[in-house]
C-alpha cells in the first residue's frame, strides 16, 4: 500500500521515468556497440574476400611462390603447414593429455600439484615470441636441428601444450565421480579406470580443446619467424629434417611487399587459412554441441 502511494507521487514517477529512459539508452548503446564491433570484423572479412577471391584457383594451390604474382602459389606453404600440424599433433597431444591425466587422476592435491597447475596457467600466458626464442636457442642452435620442420614443430608443441593441458583438465573434471567410484568398486586399478572410463567420457571435451589448440598453432607466425622459416622455399618437404615454409609465413612475406598484387595474393592465402580454421572450429563446435546435448 505505501508503495503505490509513493509511486503515484509525481517526483517519484519522474525519476522512475528517467531511470527507465536511462536503461533504454543503455540497452540501445550496448546493442549498437556490439553490432559496431561485429561490423568492423565483417569489414575485415569483406576486405579479404574482395581482394583475394579472384586469385584463388587451382594454380594458386598448386604452384610454388614466384617473383611473378600471376605464377605464385602456396604449394610449399600449405605442405609445410600440414607437415607442421601433423608433427605438432604427434608431440603435443599425448604429452598434454598425459599431463592432464596425471594432474587430475594420479597426483595428490598438495602444494606441488598446486604449483604445477599455477605453472601451466602461467605458461599459457607467455607471449609466443618467447617460445620462438626458446626454439631458436634450444632446438635450432642447441640441439643443432637447424631450421627444420622438427624445430618448428617442437617449438609450436611447447606453445600449445598449456592450452591442451588446461582444456583436458577441464574435460576430465566434468566426468562424474560416480563413474570412477564404480570402477574402483569393481577392483579396477587407477589406470584401468582412466583408460576405459574417464578418457572415453571426457573425450569430446579433450577433442574440442585439442582442435582449438591446433588451430591456434596453425596461425602462429612469430615463433616460426624466429626459427628462420622466412626463406624462399619452392619444394614440398619430404622429411622432418627439411627446411620449410608455412602459410602464415607466406602471408607475412606477401603482405610485406609493396606491390598491390602481392597483397591480393596474401588475401587469397588468408582465405585458404581461414577456411582451414573454420573447418577445424566447426568440428570442435559440433562435437561440443553434441556433448552438451548428451549431458542433458
Amino acid at each position, binding site marked *: 500500500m505505501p508503495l503505490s502511494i509513493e509511486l503515484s507521487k509525481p517526483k517519484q514517477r519522474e525519476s522512475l521515468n528517467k*531511470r527507465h529512459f*536511462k*536503461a533504454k539508452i*543503455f*540497452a540501445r548503446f*550496448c546493442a549498437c*556497440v*556490439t553490432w559496431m*564491433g561485429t561490423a*568492423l*570484423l565483417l569489414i*575485415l572479412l569483406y*576486405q*579479404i574476400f574482395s*581482394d583475394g577471391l579472384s586469385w584463388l584457383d587451382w594454380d594458386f594451390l598448386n604452384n610454388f611462390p614466384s617473383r611473378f604474382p600471376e605464377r605464385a602459389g602456396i604449394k610449399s606453404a600449405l605442405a609445410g603447414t600440414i607437415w607442421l600440424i601433423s608433427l605438432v599433433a604427434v608431440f603435443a597431444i599425448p*604429452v598434454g593429455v*598425459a*599431463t592432464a591425466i*596425471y594432474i587430475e587422476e594420479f597426483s595428490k592435491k598438495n602444494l606441488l600439484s598446486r604449483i*604445477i597447475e*599455477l*605453472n*601451466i*596457467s*602461467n605458461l599459457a*600466458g*607467455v*607471449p*609466443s*615470441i*618467447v617460445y*620462438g*626464442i*626458446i626454439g*631458436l*636457442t*634450444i632446438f635450432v*642452435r642447441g640441439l643443432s636441428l637447424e631450421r627444420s620442420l622438427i624445430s618448428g614443430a617442437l617449438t609450436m608443441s611447447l606453445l600449445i*601444450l598449456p592450452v591442451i593441458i588446461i582444456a583436458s583438465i577441464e574435460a576430465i573434471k566434468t566426468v562424474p565421480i560416480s563413474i570412477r567410484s564404480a570402477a574402483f568398486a569393481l*577392483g*579396477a*586399478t587407477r*589406470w584401468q579406470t582412466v583408460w576405459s572410463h574417464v578418457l572415453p567420457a571426457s573425450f569430446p571435451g579433450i577433442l574440442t580443446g585439442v582442435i*582449438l589448440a591446433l588451430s591456434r598453432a596453425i*596461425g602462429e*607466425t*612469430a615463433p616460426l*619467424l*624466429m626459427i*628462420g622459416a622466412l626463406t624462399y622455399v619452392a619444394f614440398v618437404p619430404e622429411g622432418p629434417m627439411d627446411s620449410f615454409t608455412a602459410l*602464415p609465413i607466406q*602471408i*607475412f612475406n606477401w*603482405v*610485406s611487399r609493396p606491390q598491390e598484387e602481392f*597483397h591480393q595474393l*596474401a*588475401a587469397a592465402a588468408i582465405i585458404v587459412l*581461414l577456411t582451414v*580454421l573454420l573447418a577445424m572450429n566447426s568440428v570442435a563446435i559440433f562435437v561440443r554441441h553434441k556433448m552438451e546435448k548428451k549431458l542433458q
Partner: protein
Amino acid sequence: MTTPAVHLKSISKGRVRWLEPLIHSGLGFCTLISIITTATIVFVLAKESFGFFQEIAPSEFFFGTSWVPMFKPSSFGVLPLLWGTLIVTFGAALISIPIGLASAIYLSEYASAGKRAVIKPLLELLAGIPTVVYGYFALTFITPALKVVFPDLQVFNALSGAVVVGVMVLPMIATLSDNALKAVPDSLRQGAYALGATSYEVTSQVVVPAGLSGVMASFILAISRAIGETMAVTLAAGATPNLSFTFLESIQTMTAYIVQVSMGDTPAGGVAYQTMFAVAGLLFVITLTLNIISQWILERYREVYQ
C-alpha cells in the same frame, strides 16, 4: 561364481603389477615436461640477460632513453621500446575494453537467445583469427582509413598498431566477460528487478559487480595478450624506437624489436645479440606478473554462490 575371485587375482598379480607404476611414472614424466619448459625459459632468458648486464649497467638499461644497440656509439636504454609497447597496449585497451564489456553486457543481459546463438560463435571464431591477418587488415584498411582522419599519419604509426591490436583482443574480452556475467545466478537479477530496479541498474549495480572477478580477469588477460602481440604491430607500427608523445609516428615495440634482431640474424654472442634476451626477459616478467595478478583477482574476488 568364479568370475569375481579370478578377476581380482589377475589384477593383483601379473602384468598389471608392473604396468601400473610404469604408467604412473610415464604420466609423471610428461607432467615434468611442462615444468622443464618453464625452467628452460627462465634459465635461457636469465643466463643471457645476466651476460648482458655484465656489460651494460642495469640502470642504463632500465632508465636510458635511447635505444641504439646496433650502431656505434651504442646506447641501451630500453625505455623507447617499453614506451612503444605501452602506447600500443594502452590504445588497444582504450578501444577494446569499453566495446568488449558493452558487447558482453549486451550478449548476457539483452540479447535474445537467437541473436546470442549467432553472435557468440561468431565472436569465438573471430578470436581465433591469426594475428598476421590483422596485420594485413591494418595495412589495407585501418591505416588508409585513419589517414583520412589524420592526414599527417605516417605509413608506420602507433595509432594503427593500437587500433588493430584493440580490434584483435576485442572478441576475447567479449567472450570471457560474457562467460563471467552469464555465470551470475539469475536469482540475483530477479531479486533486483523485484525491488524495482531498471535493467541498467540491475546490470551496473548487481550483475557486473557480481561477475567482476571474471570481467577484470578478462581485461588483464587481454592486456597481457596485447603486450605480447608481435605480427600485427610489426606490420603496422614500424621499427623506429621512439620515445615521444605521438600516436602518428612510427614506433617500435619490444616484440617487434625481438623479431628484427632475429631476422637480421645478429651473431650468437656479443652484446647486440644479448639485447634480444634482455628485452624478452623484460617482456616475460611483465606478462608473468599480469597473469599472476589476473589469477589472484579471479581467486580472491570470485563470488561463490552455493
